[in-house]
């Protein structure tokens, strides 16, 4: 089982997310994360989906996606060098005494504190999935109150292909 990151360029139409996610669901393809937003072209959206499966599953996923009329293009990003990033907001318990230590972790990760409450901080971290996993692990001992991750968005590098 390999992890694949694919980009799906779709018509910006009502229901298109349902068509794509429904296809994954009924064919038994796994979705680890999915992000959707506008693309470089008006009228088209770019979805980035992280999925796990062997090469046969990836091939079937791609072919089945192409059968959707609203799907314009499917790109296996992870087949080539890519930049993949996600953003996480982590609300961590932070009494004044613990704050210097937490800020140390934040600095090391080149993350940022984007909100300070009486008992909590919200840390914003951007990076690949592994970096965010590591950040979450390091903040766990302080007590994570809430965690929100965007899922991966990605592009192939300029000199790939």
């Amino acid at each position, binding site marked *: 089982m390999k992890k694949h990151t694919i980009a799906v360029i779709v018509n910006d139409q009502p229901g298109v997310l*349902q068509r794509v996610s429904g296809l994954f669901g009924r064919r038994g393809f796994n979705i680890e994360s999915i992000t959707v937003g506008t693309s470089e072209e008006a009228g088209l959206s770019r979805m980035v989906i992280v999925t796990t499966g062997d090469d046969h599953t990836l091939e079937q996923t791609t072919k089945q996606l192409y059968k959707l009329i609203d799907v314009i293009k499917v790109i296996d990003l992870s087949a080539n060098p890519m930049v993949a990033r996600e953003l996480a907001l982590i609300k961590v318990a932070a009494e004044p005494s613990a704050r210097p230590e937490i800020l140390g972790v934040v600095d090391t990760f080149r993350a940022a504190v984007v909100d300070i409450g009486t008992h909590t901080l919200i840390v914003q971290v951007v990076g690949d999935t592994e970096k965010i996993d590591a950040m979450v692990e390091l903040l766990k001992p302080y007590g994570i109150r809430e965690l929100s991750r965007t899922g991966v968005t990605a592009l192939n590098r300029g000199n790939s292909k």
Partner: protein
Amino acid sequence: MVTQDAQLKSKEELMERLSMPEVISGSEILLRSLLLEGVDCVFGYPGGAVLYIYDAMHGNPDFNHVLTRHEQGAIHAADGYARASGKVGVCIATSGPGATNLVTGIATAYMDSVPLVVITGNVISSLIGSDAFQEADITGITMPITKHSYLVRNVEDLSSTIHEAFHIANTGRKGPVLIDIPKDISAAKTLFKPVTEVSIRGYNPTVTPNKLQLDKLVKAIEESTRPLILAGGGVVYSGAHEELLEFVTKTDIPITTTLLGLGGYPSGNDLWLGMPGMHGTYTANMSIQNADLLINIGARFDDRVTGKLSGFAPKAKIVHIDIDPAEIGKNVPTDIPIVGDVKTVLGLANKIVKRADKADAWRADIQKSKAAHPFRYIDSEDELKPQWVVELIHETTSGDAIVTTDVGQHQMWAAQYYKFNKPRSWVTSGGLGTMGFGFPSAIGAQMANPDRTVVSINGDGGMQMCAQELAICAINNIPVKVVIINNQVLGMVRQWQELIHENRFSHIDLAGSPDFVKLAEAYGVKGFRASNKEDAKAVWEEALNHPGPAVVEFVVRRDENVYPMVAQGSTIDQMIMGDSE
């Protein structure tokens, strides 16, 4: 020919009149667009959300609408019309329950790649999402079982949407397309201009195959000592029967046709081995298992054909020709994939293929096997055998009828014992296996082919799932010959309970079924019954000669089984040959 010319001229005039730009309502746009797409018959059922559409039909002499008695009857009829004609079938239903009653029919068409345009009404746009009276999210409900769907939001989009829907339904791998029209859209007016161009960025089916792949096919045939063709519904749907006949004749390779492929190749020819799979012929199944080259032409390696996948065609190099790239490699790993329209692929292949010269011994073996293992059953002089009934139907119609079936034992017997010579003569729900399909689909098939004999073969179970459509046969004088092979039981379920569930017969007794002769007569349709050969011959002849619709009930024994049979999970060479051996 004067009348034909006159008809042609009046049709041209109609098209010209319909094409005139004019400010009209969404409902009128719908009817005009359907007529401009060449639709000559629509099956439907009115209701609140489609009142404007039905209002537009009122007094419209150009638009031919058949009022069914249930939406399910409407969509199965549209399906039968499409399968028997090659044209797009069209049906209309209202919102909510009208739309949800179409779901089984949409899934049936989707599984068997049948081109339909399904029109549903919906509640007024501003009420969508409010759980309004008779509201259902039909585009959402049908997303997994449509090729594409539209919810029309602006009346200005309606004519282009309809044109796109017909294009999508009837090109590439065909399938049902749904158009959901809110009530305010069907009422709103706009300037109608016919749409004749279509350009859909995300939809461009591959028709012409890769030349290099064709060369590989030619070489594989040259080298093969045990080649076999497996042809499916794709042959019929792409209209490739002549190309297939030429391909088989040129290569001299034996051929088996799947359930949906029946009629795609003439069954009388020596090289034809019958149907493969769960209830296929001994020779077709054994030949698949022994072949060194299996050329799949427009079939999708359905589990009823392959049996246990890991043991399917173990010695064969696999060639797969299909319009749908997603079918290639989906179930069976493929050595030579050829993506393209079957008719185009075979047309090109026929220019370069040569006879499979190394396969003479294989051909001889297959002929021996064919002679030794035909379908067989133990006939009886005391009671009617269902296989005999199908043989009777075959002989009396010279194999030239359009035959539709329901699902179950009678379906398999019809597939085994009716020998088809022409494509689009066989209408059956293969993929979804929809009971209730047989009879209404025959109505559509007959509407599309008024001059052909249409025989609908049903069981006593499935007949009761759509029997209400006898009404439309009666009032429209649609002369379908409705056969009911009555064994008083859900036969295929009974067979599995006998063979696999150790004779624990659970809920299969159909006691309480109506007197089918009286049922027919209650609708004003002629009814016949026979329970022995002599009566069967006599009433069947009378029914065939009757100018209108007729129901003929053949009372057969209860515990007849369909053989051969491959149990689920077995490889297809593990056949239970049955009572006769």
